[in-house]
């Protein structure tokens, strides 16, 4: 269980996070939504210790993250940030192999080899596993990164805007893969995203942030409501239902007319 307690974070005088408290829902996909500058990425960074925590506590299974070694955390939490440009020339398999570093410290044994192969198979990368990563398309690359995190084999996975630069087909494939991870491998996933409709279609739980605070959290039915979203995004949404799913319309004809 991961628990966030009284987290404050500031850059200079500017408060980015104010009194954030949350408990991450186990074995679910949690979508972190909110307008630009709401502090979503900062919150994700702080929980996954990519950013140094200023005040507050992050507890993993009741243990403070500050008292744990980096390698210990790396076996529990894996994280992928936006704009992950790699300048080095390595193959898909080599990159996935890096995922085993927390377990093997670079000395790959049979168990590691197995985990790597399984990750590659799960993300359907067999055909391109010996290609160099700079030869891949955006969608393929995103799958390779997920394979790397799969090889890392952590119960918790944090993703910072992984859907940027993906087209609709790849977005849907990507989210379906995440759902498979939760279902088949019992993972807990937290994902920062912008598209509310994707969140509505694929997430189990939604946390909405604004101005560094968590405004409201809950399941899809509770969260995808115009009263909730209008306040968070300062915009008038129209929520409707199709196929039993809730969908936001970004442009509301009646309001524009009035």
């Amino acid at each position, binding site marked *: 269980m991961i628990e966030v307690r009284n987290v404050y974070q500031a850059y200079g005088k500017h408060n980015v996070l104010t009194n954030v408290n949350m408990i991450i829902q186990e074995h679910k996909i949690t979508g972190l939504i909110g307008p630009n500058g709401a502090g979503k990425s900062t919150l994700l960074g702080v929980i996954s*210790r990519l950013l140094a925590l200023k005040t507050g506590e992050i507890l993993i299974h009741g243990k403070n993250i500050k008292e744990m070694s*980096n390698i210990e955390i790396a076996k529990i939490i894996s*994280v992928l940030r936006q704009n992950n440009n790699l300048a*080095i020339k390595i193959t898909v398999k080599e990159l996935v192999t890096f995922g085993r*570093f927390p377990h093997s410290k670079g000395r790959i044994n049979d168990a590691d080899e197995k985990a790597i192969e399984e990750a590659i198979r799960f993300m359907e990368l067999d055909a391109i596993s010996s290609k160099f990563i700079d030869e891949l398309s955006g969608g393929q690359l995103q799958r390779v990164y997920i394979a790397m995190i799969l090889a890392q084999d952590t119960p918790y996975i944090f993703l910072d805007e992984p859907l940027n630069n993906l087209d609709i087909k790849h977005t849907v494939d990507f989210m379906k893969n995440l759902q498979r991870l939760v279902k088949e491998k019992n993972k807990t996933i937290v994902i920062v995203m912008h598209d509310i409709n994707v969140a509505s279609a694929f997430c189990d739980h939604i946390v909405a942030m604004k101005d560094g605070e968590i405004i409201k959290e809950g399941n899809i039915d509770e969260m995808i409501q115009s009263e909730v979203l209008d306040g968070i995004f300062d915009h008038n949404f129209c929520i409707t239902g199709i196929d039993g799913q809730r969908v936001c319309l970004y442009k509301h004809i009646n309001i524009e007319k009035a």
Partner: protein
Amino acid sequence: MDRKRRIILTVLIAMVVIAILLYLSTWLILNFSYIQENIDNPMMQRAIINIIKRKIPQVIALVVVSILTASSSLVFQTITNNRILTPGILGFDAIYMVVHTFLLALLGTSIFVTNPYLNFLLVTILMVSISVLMYVAILRKNKNNIIFLLLFGMILSTFARSITNFVQVLMHPDDFTALLGRTSVSIVNINTSLVYVSLPLMVLVIILFARKHHTYDVMALGENYSTNLGVTYNRESMLGLIYISVAVAISTALVGPLSFLGLIAANIARELFKSSSHIKNMIYASLFAILFLVFGQVIIEIINYKTTVTTIVEVIGGLYLIYLIVKENRR
């Protein structure tokens, strides 16, 4: 591809061995007829033994310095996340000179100056502190700004050299002579008295680099990935930088500044072998560095010391650096 790599490696190793053998025997080959005529003369025999005694520590120094320069350049490039900078280009060896000069000017005849080992220790410690300071203040924040770092390196080394000159002018002539004796080492004039003493330290630094090679592989992915994979990025960078400073201090103390050797060796190894593994690159780059230094030295001896290896390395390295910058800018 693998076959091609193996062939290159075999040729490279063979060339290194030939270069070392040539280095040990250049004088013998050049003066063969003369030596043959006088082989029975005890003076001649003593001279031969003396030359061999002088050549062996030299070759050890050249080999170890090459390995240190190549490995430290590779690790430095990983820590600063670029392919163009090396400790030499950023002016680490110029810092060594400044520290040396200042110590002599300020402490004069203290034990820390007169005893070469204590002196070396103190200089190394000071150098490590300066480079750590430099990392925290400048390198870490401007990692991706190569042009800025190049400019910074240029200014730093020019500044360091000017300061060194300035202090030297103010010095007492006796102190100046002492300083020259200590700092005017070069490939031709290797400080052999330090070779055997610093050998354990050099081997230690090489082992430290080699032991961390998996960590450096991960660090090449950048800070976020490293942290995700459980590498404490800032601490490892700092540690790496300390090793690098020690490596530069040792090699500068032994053979003087070698600005571009690391750059050439590291980049040619990367170009030819296209490997992302640090341990492999360290081996390849070290072999190239040894080849350059030792073979260059052989040529210098054949043309009767008309120039120095350092000059040749600087000419080739300078051109190569310009090529790299142009290539980088075009991307």
